[in-house]
């Protein structure tokens, strides 16, 4: 294995009864990169993360983290994780909880002085996660955004080489999401490998060096955000309507190449498979005010890539 790979999945499968959660997954994560793991509900993201953390055993294939078994990497304090949907325990303050987790890494690091990164001081850690002012509060009495910041602090308390964040921002308001991402990004800039899953495609677009899309337990797309978007050939042509009433949906939809239309206020958006023909037709009809041609967004690309699923649901249980 090349030394620059932090994580390698090689032909990994995992079934729960008759359900194949992960079905021949191959994936390599290079060190020092931030990778987003996307996929519809039930695509196998959480099972994949579970195997990466050594919580779930693969049925076949191999998962290696830093060249060894995942459990080994966990035991050596090389991984920090923010698992999905955990809550903080009652009866402890934030400082006690973060301090304990930090100490568990520090004790391990003490046995292995050759390790490059030192465990940060508790005060620095609280600062990094922006929870200094919460230090004296009971851990179970925090708001959702505050609790996620504390859980992030637990993930990075040992300055691990790899952090794994399973839907870190789910359920948070926009401000909390931004705040958390500020911390995650700062941590990634320190050279650590970051793997995160999310339902917010803009987070993958904004923060990931690389996006891996999984569906039905295997990787269906893998690349930068730009590369993923280019997998979807369609373009969006948008322009201002002079008088909305004058143009009907039908007339726009009948233009060459147009697959679907959408009007928001005075702005029309046409999704087209042949933007050249669509633009020419629009010009002929005189609809050129503020005309703009854009590629598909990540969301369209994601939906197109995963739309072959017959049971695509927007809400439900993750495995």
């Amino acid at each position: 294995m090349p030394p620059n790979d932090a994580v390698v999945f090689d032909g990994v499968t995992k079934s729960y009864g008759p359900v194949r959660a992960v079905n021949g997954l191959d994936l390599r994560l290079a060190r020092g990169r931030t990778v987003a793991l996307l996929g519809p509900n039930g695509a196998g993201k959480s099972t994949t993360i579970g195997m990466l953390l050594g919580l779930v055993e693969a049925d076949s294939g191999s998962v290696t983290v830093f060249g060894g078994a995942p459990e080994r990497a966990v035991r050596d304090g090389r991984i920090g994780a923010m698992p999905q949907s955990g809550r903080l325990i009652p009866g402890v303050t934030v400082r006690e909880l973060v301090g304990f987790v930090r100490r568990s890494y520090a004790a391990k690091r003490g046995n292995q002085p050759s390790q490059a990164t030192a465990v940060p001081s508790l005060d620095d850690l609280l600062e990094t996660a922006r929870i200094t002012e919460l230090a004296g509060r009971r851990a179970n009495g925090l708001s959702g955004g505050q609790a996620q910041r504390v859980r992030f602090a637990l993930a990075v308390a040992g300055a691990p080489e790899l952090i794994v964040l399973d839907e870190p921002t789910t359920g948070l308001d926009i401000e909390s999401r931004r705040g958390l991402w500020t911390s995650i990004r700062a941590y990634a800039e320190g050279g650590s490998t970051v793997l995160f899953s999310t339902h917010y495609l803009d987070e993958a677009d904004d923060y990931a060096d690389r996006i891996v899309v999984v569906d039905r337990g295997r990787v269906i797309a893998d690349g930068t955000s730009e590369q993923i978007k280019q997998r979807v050939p369609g373009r969006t042509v948008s322009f201002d309507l002079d008088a909305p009433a004058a143009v009907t949906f039908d007339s726009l939809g009948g233009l060459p190449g147009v697959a679907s239309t959408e009007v928001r206020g005075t702005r029309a958006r046409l999704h087209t498979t042949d933007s050249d023909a669509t633009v020419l037709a629009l010009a002929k009809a005189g609809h050129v005010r503020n005309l703009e041609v854009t590629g598909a967004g990540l969301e369209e690309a994601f939906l197109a890539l995963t739309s072959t699923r017959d049971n695509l649901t927007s809400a439900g249980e993750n495995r």
Partner: protein
Amino acid sequence: MTLAYVRLEMVRLLRDPGYLVMSLISPLVMYLVFTNLDLGRQGSDGAAAYSMVGMAGFGAIGAVMGNGVSIAEDKPLGWIRQLRLLPLRPVNVVIGRTLCAMVVTLPPILAVSLAGGLVNGVSLGAGRWAAVVGLLWLGIAPIAVLGIGLGYLLTAQQAQMAGLVCYMGLSLLGGLWVPISTFPGWLTNVAKATPINRYGELSWRITDGHAPTLLGVAVLAGWAALFVAFAVYGYRRSARTA
């Protein structure tokens, strides 16, 4: 690091001491009531001492089962999984949790023993007092590990039920309430195979002026090995599914 974990869990416990108080009060009250009714006088002078060991052990079982329930309550919060993702060996976490359980058995053991000595006139030499209390305390370790395994494997509700079965059922079967010599013969033999009876026997031998039997210690050690394997299995499994 195990001690840091014990400290954290003890801090949590002391801030929510409900079950600590419960595990102290019920055996103490039962002991004082039972031994001061006619029931307690039907036996020899040894009845108060017998009952003291029985009720102290009963309280200790309640405390370790409560510890198991509190583990089960942590599970849905993801705390067990969080611990599993730290650089701590599973066996150290289980040992840490066992030490917590051992600490919480001290209040009922000490309270019932004090009541025995001060209220019920149980008189033993200093050495034998130390041996009785010490064995009551150390001997509960296997049961503490059992409670931990139940806590890791079961939901809080199931753990509560299983804990209650162990608390009441094993205490009764093990002879902590009434001597197993009063049982039918076959049941006496079953009782002798239980860890609780062998646990109580350690201290009863002392109050009767003997040393613990090798067989008794061996039976208890066998159960201990089984329970340790069970608890480590439970911990690893609970981290996987939680």
